């Protein structure tokens, strides 16, 4: 079959809402687009463990500590599900890790912000996982089968992540004036970076057209961002806190909130590597990979030795 026919069949299949599986024919650009997106997503889950891991030893109670441990462990799992999905497109785990460690691959910019106080752990679970969920719920219907199935599994696990974060915020917001101030400070610092998680505005998003055509995404960045604001503002009000946006206003006509312009200069600056923690995050990841090298070597040597014995 010639290239044009193959591409027509491929698009027709997508338009019938059928899924693409690893051995199916796919355009090279579809494969490239997805390897980039899935691996970025995987790296984000893994790097995302660092800002939260930072507070495991200092969690204020045993309950908070076991919950945070379980959450961070889940994020490791999410990274692994996603690496598996990316590998099904013909790239190896070693290559994927190498791309992260050499700075060739990106991860979500949100994790380049520091977790300075305990209430930041609340804000991250509530807002950062909340924004991630919004995106991941959509991706449960993405066109590539292994990616969609990983998303279904991830979404099942995510809802406790957001709830535990909101619970932390609730306790602080209803606590002493100092605790409430701490919660407000976290909201002030995490609100805008959370809105940035949905990516550039639609009229400035080069990859969006293909992603929509190929049914990788089913909603645009701005649509998801708007829904996130609509859902989250009432939660902020419940907490008795204030959204750090003077332009935020209910718009009866569109049945949603109008909100201020995201600081895109900051967004691109953090992507470029100039966020508060870019260097720290990457060097921590590279170091832990180096520290684990002897374990992989030993496991490899042990497996080789056992194979030899079995063959003898």
């Amino acid at each position, binding site marked *: 079959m010639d290239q044009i026919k193959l591409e027509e069949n491929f698009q027709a299949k997508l338009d019938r809402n059928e899924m693409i599986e690893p051995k*199916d024919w796919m355009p090279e650009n579809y494969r490239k687009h997805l390897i980039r997106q899935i691996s970025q997503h995987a790296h984000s889950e893994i790097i995302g463990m660092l800002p939260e891991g930072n507070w495991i030893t200092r969690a204020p109670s045993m309950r908070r500590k076991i919950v945070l441990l379980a959450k961070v462990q889940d994020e490791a799992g999410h990274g692994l599900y996603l690496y598996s999905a990316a*590998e099904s497109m013909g790239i190896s785990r070693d290559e994927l*890790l*190498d791309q992260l460690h050499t700075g060739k691959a990106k991860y979500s910019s949100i994790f380049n912000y520091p977790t300075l106080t305990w209430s930041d752990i609340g804000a991250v679970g509530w807002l950062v996982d909340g924004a991630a969920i919004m995106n991941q719920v959509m991706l449960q219907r993405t066109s590539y089968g292994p990616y969609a199935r990983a998303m279904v599994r991830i979404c099942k696990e995510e809802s406790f992540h957001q709830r535990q974060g909101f619970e932390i915020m609730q306790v602080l917001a209803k606590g002493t004036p100092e605790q409430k101030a701490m919660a407000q400070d976290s909201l002030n610092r995490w609100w805008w970076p959370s809105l940035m998680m949905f990516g550039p505005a639609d009229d400035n998003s080069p990859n969006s057209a293909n992603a929509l055509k190929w049914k990788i995404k089913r909603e645009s960045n701005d649509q998801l961002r708007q829904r996130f604001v609509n859902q989250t503002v009432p939660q902020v009000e419940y907490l008795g806190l204030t959204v750090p946006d003077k332009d935020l206003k209910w718009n009866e006509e569109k049945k949603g909130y109008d909100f201020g312009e995201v600081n895109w200069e900051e967004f691109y600056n953090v992507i470029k590597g100039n966020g508060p923690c870019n260097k720290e995050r990457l060097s921590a990841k590279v170091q832990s*990979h180096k520290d684990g090298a002897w374990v992989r070597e030993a*496991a490899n040597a042990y*497996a080789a030795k056992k194979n030899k014995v079995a063959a003898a």
Partner: protein
Amino acid sequence: MTMSTAQDTQGLLWEVFVQSKPGQPHKHSGSVHAHDKEMALQNARDLYCRRSEGTNIWVVPASEIVASSPEDIGSFFEPSNDKVYRHPTFYHVPEGITHM
């Protein structure tokens, strides 16, 4: 911060199949990396059964799985299409006959 992992290895890729309840068939869950069988089984447990999702796990080296190819979907599955007599609806059961 260049760091080559050319000499590095994450071990073999294993496909994981989990049985959710006794009596149910095993279903594909995803894959894990591991250096041997025992490690593959433990990694699969840690990764795919953190919330009592399973009662039994199979792990298989991904390279050992033989799969039909999507291009053959027509010719490979075609032979079953014209055998309607393999379905119960092909047969006429007389009125009054039950339990059949």
